[in-house]
């Protein structure tokens, strides 16, 4: 029934002209514009008579850090995305359940959310004072020009390290976007505070033990397990597309045991829930280790071959017995990498195989250290012996295993019961169930890493797995999240430029820029503050970790992150660092606090408005984002935004006659010529858009099928190569297969000892009694009795979708905090009241959500609520005061695998060692403007 279609603008102009009332534009003939047709409209129902059809159905997913990577079909009509639907074309992996269809509530809201009022659609410049909310819409040309001038000025005046380019999880998981950001930062020499340790997710305990920070297999491996300890994780809420693997495993007879202080939706579906008090998990793990050891439930052959537990340790100084202890030439040559076993077969001291690490010339690849195979050696696990040192003295040695027994005995189930609140019999029962099941796994949340002593907890988890022979076994292991091999991403970032980026731990970056020593002093006392700072400075002095202080932090570019939201010690950091920046640029799709405080806001395209690719180890597929509709308003994808900035930098430098500057990064001297930034960024014009970046990455990433982006876009996803099993155990696969390399192929681990290393005899570890893991009381704040815990939310991925009106209706409509009824009653609070949560660091107001699922003495809040959603713009980050708690051992270096390893070993910014109190909030107690 439609008439011939006419374009909007053309029609309007012609028609006004024909009306004879406003001839601003050249007239168009009325006949042309108003060709009458045969429309027969009588009432509104008539417009519904035509069948609704789609212009096209496009493949897509959501490029956010949900780790879901769910393949969707995206339905488009008249240039609008109307709906999305889960793509159901995943296949099964062996006898494990299918991955699809995959999806969650957030993903299914996105087609509406992307048109929401929170959306940033145009480049904006601050018009009032910071945070006032007054904006001027500006053109891309103006935005790029002014930002480029600031980048040039800061680089010339203070050095490029004075500019940070923060990459958040929203951006980083989109591989083309991350590659673009990395290349931009590398060319410009910016400081990149890496977010992995910045948000306290870095599994440093796993790294300390194995030299691999990110152990993990596919989700289907859960199904292969016979016992899964779901520890400090809540997959029913946080891994919605994959939670079914746990429940299907249960149907299949797997013991799924939830370990969390609060009763979570995951606990509800598990075979057993145990609830240690917050921060007492190390005691729980060590008690189970005690059971494994005392009841001899360990896998002795595995332990002898794969771990350092049979390695000999000197009784006098607690250090490993080394070749340099025994031989004068070795001592002179400082050969500290040969370790010893006591061979039961010959009742003699023997060198541990595959420990000798010959010196390697700088820049040369270290040769492999030989096989872990023991041959005829039968290493003793228990015993004490005397050995003669190079000086002729006799020194007593014992095994790490013996030391571990002693340490574990200090955490007997009875002792642990007092610490954790979990009945000793339950601890024994779970340990036995875990030991009896083969394979068994620990599915650990990143929350583990967010405790100051999360590394100790993770090391004790690794011990449980290793003692039972479950590390490196399909269906076993510590499941956190494997990282892909560097391959294409690194190549793209550095091609034609070389590595010239300044990557630092987000934790150390904040420690320095946010004056966290002073915060430590205020909250935790001067003794802790002084001690931690001394070790921090010592680590820098010894160059174990880098720092790029230059002339201070002057300009912050925040891409794909809401950095002012998630920071531990957010208030202190904003006051001491963020607010003092000369220029703040936020590159965001939606307006949160970071953008609200910025000087410039650049709109970035949302998930259905851009091309990109996604990969993550839990799902063995390469997924794509496909541009279903053009970027809304004037938004653009990350590649394009950085291209506009490099273009403007090059143009402005030429116009202003700014020459190249000299720079020095980690000892590498180089020139940075602003006028060449564009040609460098685009590889002399060879990379034209995000599709070219994607193709580069597809072509250069190991284990990725070599197809064109168009083919991928047509299919939506393709199975990664060499992913036939549920474990990443094939060396040719996209993900690390380190455990299989060692357990199956008997290659040495990338640790000092070449073994799963549970004993760390670094001087700092010995001093702080962390050579072996053991319970540590979490830090508390005097007078504030309640532990506050947080976790990922069902209705948002970090701050994304947190403000979606429909998702808010499924919650309480505003930020809420879970409270045990007894704690509430004691303070005269009933469900739905507003409460003021406070400690010496700050305060925030939220709605009381009373729940018997919370243990007394603990508050819980799902995270991600942007400060803009709170009264006074103060969210939970105002009471979290832990950003200065950089424990000394996390800054240790000069010891085999320990030292600065971006994304593998770095101090975490932790989030849990603090306490709060709360009171009913009323108008009378109003404390905010």
């Amino acid at each position, binding site marked *: 029934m439609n008439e011939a279609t*006419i374009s909007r603008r053309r*029609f309007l102009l012609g028609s006004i002209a024909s*009306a004879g009332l406003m001839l601003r534009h050249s007239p168009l003939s009325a006949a042309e514009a108003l060709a009458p047709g045969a429309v027969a409209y009588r*009432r509104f129902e008539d417009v519904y008579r035509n069948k609704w059809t789609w212009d096209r159905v496009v493949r897509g997913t959501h490029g956010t850090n949900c780790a879901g990577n769910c393949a969707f079909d995206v339905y488009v009509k008249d240039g609008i995305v*109307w709906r999305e639907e889960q793509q159901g074309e995943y296949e099964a992996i062996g006898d494990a359940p299918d991955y699809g269809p995959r999806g969650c509530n957030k993903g299914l809201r996105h087609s509406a959310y992307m*048109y929401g*009022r*929170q959306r*940033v659609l145009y480049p904006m410049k601050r018009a009032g004072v910071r945070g006032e909310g007054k904006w001027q819409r500006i053109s891309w040309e103006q935005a790029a020009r002014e930002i480029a001038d600031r980048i040039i000025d800061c680089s010339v005046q203070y050095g490029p390290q004075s500019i940070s380019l923060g990459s958040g999880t929203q951006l980083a998981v989109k591989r083309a976007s991350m590659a673009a950001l990395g290349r931009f930062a590398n060319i410009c020499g910016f400081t990149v505070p890496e977010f992995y340790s910045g948000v306290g997710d870095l599994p440093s305990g796993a790294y300390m033990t194995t030299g691999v920070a990110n152990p993990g297999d596919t989700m289907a491996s859960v199904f292969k397990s016979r016992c899964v300890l779901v520890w400090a994780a809540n997959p029913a809420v946080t891994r919605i597309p994959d939670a079914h693997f746990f429940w299907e495993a249960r149907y299949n007879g797997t013991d799924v045991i939830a370990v969390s202080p609060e009763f979570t939706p995951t606990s509800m579906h598990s075979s057993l829930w145990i609830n240690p008090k917050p921060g007492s998990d190390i005691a729980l793990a060590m008690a189970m280790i005690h059971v494994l050891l005392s009841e001899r439930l360990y896998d002795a052959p595995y332990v002898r071959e794969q771990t350092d537990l049979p390695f000999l340790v000197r009784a006098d100084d607690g250090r490993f017995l080394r070749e340099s202890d025994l031989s004068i030439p070795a001592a002179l040559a400082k050969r500290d990498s040969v370790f010893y076993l006591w061979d039961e077969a010959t009742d003699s001291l023997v060198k541990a195989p595959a420990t000798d690490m010959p010196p390697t010339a700088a820049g040369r690849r270290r040769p492999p250290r030989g096989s872990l195979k023991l041959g005829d050696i039968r290493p003793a696990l228990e015993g004490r012996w005397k050995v003669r040192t190079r000086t002729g003295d006799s020194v007593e040695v014992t095994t790490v295993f013996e030391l571990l027994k002693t340490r574990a005995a200090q955490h007997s189930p009875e002792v642990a019961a007092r610490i954790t609140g979990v009945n000793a019999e339950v601890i024994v029962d779970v340990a036995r169930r875990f030991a009896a099941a083969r394979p068994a796994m620990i599915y650990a949340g990143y929350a583990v890493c967010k405790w100051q002593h999360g590394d100790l907890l993770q090391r004790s988890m690794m011990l449980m797995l290793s003692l039972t022979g479950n590390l490196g076994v399909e269906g076993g292991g510590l499941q956190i999240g494997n990282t892909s091999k560097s391959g294409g991403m690194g190549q793209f970032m550095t091609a034609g430029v070389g590595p010239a980026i300044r990557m630092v731990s987000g934790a150390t970056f904040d420690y320095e820029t946010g004056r966290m020593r002073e915060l430590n002093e205020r909250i935790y006392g001067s003794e802790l503050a002084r001690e931690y700072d001394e070790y921090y400075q010592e680590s820098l002095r010894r160059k174990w970790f880098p720092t790029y202080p230059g002339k201070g932090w002057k300009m912050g570019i925040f891409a794909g992150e809401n950095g002012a939201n998630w920071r531990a010690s957010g208030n202190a950091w904003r006051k001491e660092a963020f607010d003092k920046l000369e220029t703040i640029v936020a590159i965001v799709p939606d307006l949160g606090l970071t953008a609200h405080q910025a000087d410039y806001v650049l709109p970035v395209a949302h998930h259905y408005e851009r091309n990109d690719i996604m990969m993550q180890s839990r799902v063995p597929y390469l997924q794509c984002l496909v541009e279903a509709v053009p970027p809304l308003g004037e938004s653009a994808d990350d590649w394009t935004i950085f291209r506009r900035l490099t273009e403007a930098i090059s143009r402005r430098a030429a116009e202003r006659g700014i020459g190249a500057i000299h720079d020095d990064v980690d000892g590498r001297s180089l020139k940075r010529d602003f006028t060449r930034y564009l040609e460098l960024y685009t590889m002399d014009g060879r990379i034209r858009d995000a599709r070219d970046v994607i193709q580069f990455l597809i072509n250069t990433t190991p284990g990725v099928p070599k197809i064109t982006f168009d083919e991928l876009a047509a299919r939506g996803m393709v199975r990664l190569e060499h992913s036939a099993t549920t474990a990443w155990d094939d060396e040719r696969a996209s993900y690390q297969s380190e455990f299989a390399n060692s357990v199956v192929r008997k290659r040495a681990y990338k640790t000092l000892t070449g073994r799963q290393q549970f004993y760390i005899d670094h001087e700092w570890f010995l001093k702080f009694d962390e050579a072996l893991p053991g319970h540590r009381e979490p830090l508390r704040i005097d007078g504030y009795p309640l532990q506050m815990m947080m976790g990922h939310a069902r209705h948002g991925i970090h701050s994304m979708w947190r403000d979606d009106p429909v998702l808010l209706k499924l919650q309480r409509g505003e930020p809420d905090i879970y409270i045990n009824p007894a704690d509430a009653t004691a303070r005269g609070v009933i469900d739905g009241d507003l409460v003021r949560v406070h400690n010496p660091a700050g305060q925030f107001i939220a709605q009381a959500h009373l729940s018997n699922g919370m243990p007394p003495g603990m508050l819980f809040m799902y995270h991600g609520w942007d400060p803009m959603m709170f009264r006074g713009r103060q969210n939970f980050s105002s009471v979290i005061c832990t950003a200065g708690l950089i424990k000394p051992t996390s800054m240790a270096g000069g010891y085999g695998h320990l030292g600065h390893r971006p994304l593998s070993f770095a101090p975490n910014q932790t989030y849990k060692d603090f306490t709060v109190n709360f009171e009913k909030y009323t108008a009378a107690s109003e404390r905010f403007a």
Partner: protein
Amino acid sequence: MRSHGTARSKPSVARTVDAPPGDAALRARGAAYALFSELTRSPFRPDGSIVALPPADLPELLAELGRVLPFGFDASALAAAAVDLCDDDAALAAQYASLFEVGQPGPPVAIRESLVRDDARRALEEIVRYYDFFGYRLNADEQWCPDHLSVELEFLHLLAARHEAGRRDDLQHLLASRDFLSRHLLAWLPAAATSVGDRVPGSWWQLLWDGLHRYLESDRLWLATTLDGY
């Protein structure tokens, strides 16, 4: 103050309507929609230019409309405000942006229907169905916002113009106008106009939205009377 006859002002275009009275009235009805569509359109153009100021002869245009429209419409306040507007495209554009385009948690005033409707998706679908039914297609850069005030007004302009250009006994365009007005524009614009008034009382924007609101109400009444029994 905005001065006429300067280099910045737009050329005067008002001229006497030479069509028969009936045609002129109907044509004026559609032209008013076109005019309001232009006045509420984002002043930021895809080529980077800014066009925020109304035509220099807006007072004359409004006066002409007032004389010719098939119903009474007093736009004198709006006309007076147009005369008083400062001659600064950029400043007016900035006001537009800060009212309707940027802000947290969203622009202060919604200028798109789906941002304020509880049944946003259903409303949007119906809008697109209307557009498809009458063959109204948006340019690529505007397709994402068919519910923008300016676009909805232009659609009503199209309906009015088609009615005026077609057979007078074919009432379908009037019926569609009546339904679209009540089911869409008048379902959300009044509250938005109030919001504009609350935020920038006495401003050009308040007068514009108030004038637009009154125009829509007048047209609704005229349509109801004209279509009485349909």
